[in-house]
């Protein structure tokens, strides 16, 4: 009987927490993610999620030859050095921010339109027995027309 009562309560608490986390992530993306786009126009798409240390996220998107792009990938302060790697359709690595001191953004242009894959990873830093850190990571795209 108690179990029957406990589960709906746990569910409500978790869902309430989720709404709060979602709001936090959106706010983080707006306040920290979008400003990283600088003079680029934010495309209006929203990609943000809570990631735990060691966890990865993937994003697939087509980029067009007429545009200049900036991708800004930013994690909350407690997540140090969010890694991101960009692959072309043949799975070749075309960029990784590990070679650029974990830069938060990357500017690029394309000779021809391409579908690219971005893999974002929060590296593990916690020691054994510690609670792994988790926090919002936002992936934002900005564009400008080529002149």
């Amino acid at each position, binding site marked *: 009987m108690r*179990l029957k009562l406990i*589960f709906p309560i*746990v*569910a409500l608490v*978790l*869902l309430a927490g*989720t*709404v709060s*986390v*979602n*709001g*936090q*992530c*959106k706010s983080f*993306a707006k306040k920290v993610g979008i400003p990283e786009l600088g003079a680029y*126009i*934010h*495309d*209006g*798409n*929203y*990609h*943000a*999620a*809570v990631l*735990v*240390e*060691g*966890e*990865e*996220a*993937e*994003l*697939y*998107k*087509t980029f*067009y*030859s*007429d*545009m*200049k792009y900036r991708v800004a990938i930013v994690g909350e302060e407690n997540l140090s050095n969010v890694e991101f790697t960009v692959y*072309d359709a043949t799975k070749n690595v*075309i*960029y990784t921010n590990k070679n650029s001191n974990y830069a938060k953004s990357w*500017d*690029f*242009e*394309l*000779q*021809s*339109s*391409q*579908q690219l894959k971005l893999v974002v990873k929060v590296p593990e830093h916690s020691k054994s027995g510690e*609670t*792994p850190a988790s926090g*919002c990571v936002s*992936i934002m*795209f900005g*564009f400008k*027309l080529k002149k």
Partner: protein
Amino acid sequence: MNRKSGISSGLLVILLSTTLLFNGCKSCSTKEQVDDLSIEVPKDNPALVNDINRAKQIFMALPSPLESAMLIKSTGAKFDPELLNSLENADNYATSKSMALNLGVYTCDLSFTSLYEQTQLIIDYMNAAKKMAEGLGILRAIEQSTIDRLEQNINNTEVIMEIVSETFMNSNSDLVDNGQPAIAAMVLVGGWFEGLYIATRLVDMKDFNGNKLVGRIIDQKLSIDILLNLLADNKGNPAIDELTVQVQKLKSIFDKISLTTSPVRPEYVETTNTTYLKSEVKSNLTPAVFQELATTVAEIRSTFVK
């Protein structure tokens, strides 16, 4: 562990996974690493544990309405208000599906009117998008203060684009926050189709070969699988399943277009701090296949805006 308690812990894991799934990511498939949380994982179910550990969050990103509008304008295409969805139609949409699709459609039309500096239409289309958002219960996505800010900056294209971008992001993130990822996906689908519809209608068949706009339409072949994956994330929803059938029909036409791209050769230029992705592309779209594509896009779009 007896069967009942096994089910209970399994339920808790599923509940936790489901809860974390709605963690602010739009158009994505999501599962979390339960090993990293201080919740007991059902060790007697290694398949489930393995599945959860292997899973990752996947985002399917379609070009936004603003990006689609910018791409079309960049080809030198002229503005034609007749191609936009009628503002009067806004009163016809009563279902979640029609309101979601037309939130995308009207946002795309709003993006066109913004880029072509059609001042009165900008306000009108923002109001139409607001009506759709309100119908979907996302009242904060486009508030009256947004319309007021738009009016105050009606001659400032840069600020207008910022506002359009912000309202589109608000709409989608609010839908996901409300636990409506299928509706959020439909908004994206509506916006993508409207951009493709306008683009196909603006092509001058007398100037088909080498037409830059035709090139941008061919590029949409690169997004059709992304679109199908986005829908697949929400399969089982009747409205999504209907859309999937329509998109598959469109894909069968895109499949007739050959598009091959060489591997990308990145070249970093320090002076501009920009990486140039060099590659060659070969494509072939015949006028006949283009007409078939344009007709199908128009047919599908007509089911959205009717």
